[in-house]
């Protein structure tokens, strides 16, 4: 099982270069398949969805981002962000790989607090939201770098809108679960607080998007800032702060 995972990690290390288009396609496809295989292996071994630990979250996150990207490539023919998408995926999986030693026992039984039907939906919506935000940020970076394709701006908006809806759902479901597990739906836990900050930033983006002066550069920057906050909500809170969410 670990070989699966290691392979997924290393094969996802891909190229930022669009000129090697064919190599990109093949490698990224192999990477995605291995990523998926690793997740499936975890499902079979643990007999639950891979959403309980930080490690599992990262693998799911990377795959969702790449899958959404594939959809967009097919639907809207947006190819420019491919390099960044793969780079982010590679970094995420690298972060996951660093955790492997600590995870030999990690893929085990869930602790009592995690034994709830809410775990699945709360984390799944978060994974989808994060995947979307990561992709939107990738597109925004390419936009700023000057490689604009006609539908990019609307794609970014759609991505952020969809991810925002997922994030809203994730936060609310988290609150529902918290009420059931701890008796409080909101405890200003670092993760909750930073998730709310993330939510507010993207809400600002969505509100400002219709205003004339905010299209283009400023909007892109906001999308990227939003994703940086997402990363902080995930990594920063987990590793720099302690609280109810530290294990995820």
């Amino acid at each position, binding site marked *: 099982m670990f070989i699966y995972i290691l392979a997924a990690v290393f094969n996802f290390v891909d190229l930022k270069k669009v000129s090697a288009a064919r190599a990109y396609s093949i490698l990224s496809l192999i990477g995605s398949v291995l990523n998926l295989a690793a997740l499936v292996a975890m499902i079979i071994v643990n007999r639950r969805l891979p959403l309980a630990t930080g490690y599992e979250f990262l693998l799911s996150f990377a795959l969702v981002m790449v899958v959404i990207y594939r959809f967009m490539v097919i639907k809207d023919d947006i190819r420019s962000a491919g390099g960044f998408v793969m780079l982010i995926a590679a970094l995420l999986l690298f972060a996951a790989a660093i955790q492997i030693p600590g995870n030999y026992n990690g893929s085990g039984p869930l602790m009592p607090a995690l034994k709830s039907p809410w775990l699945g939906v709360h984390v799944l919506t978060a994974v989808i939201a994060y995947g979307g935000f990561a992709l939107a940020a990738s597109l925004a970076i390419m936009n700023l770098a000057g490689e604009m394709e006609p539908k990019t701006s609307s794609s970014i908006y759609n991505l952020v809108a969809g991810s925002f809806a997922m994030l*809203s759902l994730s936060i609310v479901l988290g609150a529902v679960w918290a009420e059931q597990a701890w*008796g409080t739906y909101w405890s200003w836990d670092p993760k909750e607080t930073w998730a709310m900050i993330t939510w507010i930033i993207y809400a600002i983006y969505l509100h400002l998007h219709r205003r004339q002066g905010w299209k283009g550069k400023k909007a892109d920057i906001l999308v990227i800032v939003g994703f940086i906050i997402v990363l902080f909500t995930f990594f920063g809170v987990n590793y720099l702060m302690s609280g109810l969410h530290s294990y995820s």
Partner: protein
Amino acid sequence: MLHTGIILVLIGGGINSIYGQTAQIIIKEGDTISVSKLISSKSAFKLKLNKFEIKFNPDGSPAQYYSGINIISEIKPLVKASISVNHPLKYEGVKLYQESFGYLVVTQAENGGKKIGKTIKEGETIKPPGTSRIVRVYKYIPNYNPQYGMETKTLRPDNPRVMFSVYEDKNLLGVGVARLGEPVKIDRDTIVKFKAIKLYSVINAKTDPGLSFTCIGGVMLVVGVFLALFISQLLKPTNMAGEDGSKDILAEDNH
């Protein structure tokens, strides 16, 4: 709708912070505590802890914590229930949550013919007869393994030990690790035994009068988000990229 939802959530939260109550019930097996003395409920009731149990996984980690309780009410029939993490109990407007648990060490000290017994929490002390020395039960280690030092290897008590310290006139004389029932010589004629471990459960009792507001608010929030962002998109078949298009769509959102 989205924004109304947010306001409702804030109202609910506000009501809760002013009128909501919370009380921590620390109770050992066999004891009965009057909950209504700690927190206001629709009718008076007491809680008796029959048994606190930890179910373990094969690897020794905890699978679930169960508090088997009786709810004793003067006006309603007896309720037997089990509270566990993620499975709280609602009774007469009060919600009871399994929060945590702790250990009690049943300790006995004797000197010559004199014996005293005390059930103490981790960190507490016992003064044995016939000596000026004091023994502190420092920590209970369910699965003692020297490799792990003072930390237990698993929560399941595969190799239980009691870690204790001995003091004389506030000076630390030494630290030791004893098995359950093992006699420990504290002083010339004084023997201390840590006979058994008892568990106590920590149950959190809460009332939340603003909860219905918050729930409705939460639902409205989520529905509102989906409505604002997507339904309008379905109604207007033109693409979102157009500046006029997006202006109209968001303006249509009547909360």
